[in-house]
């Protein structure tokens, strides 16, 4: 068997989108003459995935993640380039191909709203022609992991978001697919459920050897699940490599949000220069206006202590509120273009 399960070369998808005019008169004009613009949602992407791997696919909104997933799942036809997954060309062989994969789209359950969970599983068993032995084994596996039995007779509509996510993920493993796509599997879940979901994904990957592709905004998902990640921006791959290297490059970066709405715009504007003067370091502290009085600083803790910068700001500026976060994906991308991962 081929060690690679996915091989994509020069995968490209362009969309023609309608450029809508503004206002009611614009909407009226749109009815008669439409002007289109081409968007390169995915633009010449090449990568491969090994069997049994968990791959994280990250990128800001509109980066091309969803389009990539749609190309890989056979929903969309590539404009150029190609991809083979487990010997199939997804778009051309759709029906036979999807029998061999599982797809969970964050907020869009594949389970039947009105059906009790166990009935949904029975229908899926019919659809994927799952042999009894496999079906029983997987149900047992799910039960050992998350005690799915509790929910067997609850209609899906009555499950909480977390329970639904867990059932949906379990359902996607039911037919022993070679490959599973999980789109934002932990979005909107609280911390303990997130942990649970990650446990299921990790365990099932290990027990069943399923290849898994996760798209996410949550860097926690990546750190906990994916040894390798691909970072996409504007339809191209910015980074494809070990998560460890990624974390080494960005793990010590922090984003400092400061509410400086009491200060004048020029006062805030002077901050960057002043910080550069007080904290000389190789990579200067970046300062960005959020537009609503908030200012975002991004700094590398290896070079300059976060607390010193914070203290400096509190002493010299009128700061109403403070938030500290990991580096945002947007900043990561800017820094990647500047060569942070080279």
């Amino acid at each position: 068997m081929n060690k690679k399960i996915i091989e994509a070369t020069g995968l490209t998808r362009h969309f023609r989108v309608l450029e809508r005019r503004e206002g009611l008169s614009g909407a009226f004009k749109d009815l008669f003459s439409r002007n289109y613009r081409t968007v390169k949602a995915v633009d010449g992407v090449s990568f491969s995935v090994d069997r049994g791997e968990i791959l994280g696919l990250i990128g800001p909104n509109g980066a091309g993640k969803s389009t990539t997933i749609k190309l890989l799942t056979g929903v969309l036809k590539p404009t150029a380039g190609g991809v083979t997954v487990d010997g199939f060309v997804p778009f051309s062989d759709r029906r036979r191909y999807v029998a061999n994969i599982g797809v969970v789209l964050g907020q869009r359950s594949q389970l039947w709203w009105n059906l009790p969970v166990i009935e949904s599983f029975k229908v899926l068993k019919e659809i994927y022609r799952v042999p009894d032995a496999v079906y029983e084994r997987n149900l047992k596996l799910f039960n050992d992991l998350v005690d799915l039995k509790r929910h067997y007779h609850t209609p899906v509509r009555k499950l909480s978001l977390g329970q639904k996510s867990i059932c949906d993920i379990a359902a996607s493993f039911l037919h022993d697919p070679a490959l599973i796509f999980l789109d934002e599997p932990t979005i909107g879940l609280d911390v303990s459920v997130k942990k649970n979901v990650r446990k299921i994904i990790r365990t099932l990957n290990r027990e069943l050897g399923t290849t898994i592709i996760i798209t996410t905004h949550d860097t926690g998902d990546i750190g906990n699940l994916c040894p390798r990640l691909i970072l996409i921006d504007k339809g191209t791959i910015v980074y494809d490599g070990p998560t460890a290297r990624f974390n080494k490059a960005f793990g010590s970066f922090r984003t400092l949000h400061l509410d400086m709405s009491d200060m004048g715009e020029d006062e805030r504007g002077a901050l960057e220069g002043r910080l550069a003067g007080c904290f000389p370091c190789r990579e200067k502290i970046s300062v960005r206006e959020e537009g609503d009085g908030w200012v975002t600083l991004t700094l590398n803790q290896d070079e300059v202590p976060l607390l010193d910068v914070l203290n400096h700001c509190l002493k010299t500026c009128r700061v109403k509120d403070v938030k500290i976060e990991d580096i945002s994906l947007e900043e990561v991308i800017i820094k990647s273009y500047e060569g942070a991962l080279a």
Partner: protein
Amino acid sequence: MVKRLFYYWRIYRKLTSQHIKSRMSFRADFLISVLGMLALNVSGFLSLLVLFNTIPSLGGWDYYEMLFLYGFFGLAIAPVAILFDKFWSLWSDVIWGNFINCCFKPLNTMFYYLSDTVDLKSLGSLAVSVAVFVYALPHLRVSWTALKVVCLVLMYLGSVFSFIGIRTAVSATAFWMGRNVSVMNFFSLKVEQFVRYPLTIFGKPFQIVFVFVIPYAFVAYMPVNHLLHSPDVSPEWFLTPLVGAAVFGIGCLVWSLGVRRYNGTGT
């Protein structure tokens, strides 16, 4: 092929039985909707009675012939009303992106999309149609032969599939238009109301449209007219099953073009 049919049938049976079970659990809602549909159809039937109390015949069709046409039409559209009800929400599933789940199952997309919904309230209409059909049947001046019965069944199937084809094509406009409620309503509330009357009472332009453009004539008028007004089975009778197969094919084609065009919404 047969194996595949059984495979689909098993999935369908499982889903619909579950769906019916869950609908039945909301007993009041279920009973009221069936009764409502029954009342709606009985009132349609009564208006026909009133009409014939004032005019003894319409376009050369007498009272019982009209009723037979009415009943046949009801029977021909019943499968769509009961089993294809989810077409009405296709536009919202397309707009909100839920349709994408249909692309991830190793099944025909139309089958999978329709498979989890059965419109039980349309059973009320079906009951009225059966009653009208059976009531009118013995009063018809038709010299029955075994061949005619077989042909009637064949023509009925043709009518059913013509109607499925038209409805599929009309619904699939959602893939291009997004919200297509106005189109759906135009066909089901306006155009389809004409189809339960003899085609000959309408002007020539309408007749041409209903035969050649949107072949509604084959949903009821053509087969019933053959049965009632031609003494023997003629090749014309077989036009309805043929049109049925063709229109059904076209409907499926439009659907699959729509699915190809569909690309979900961003997530």
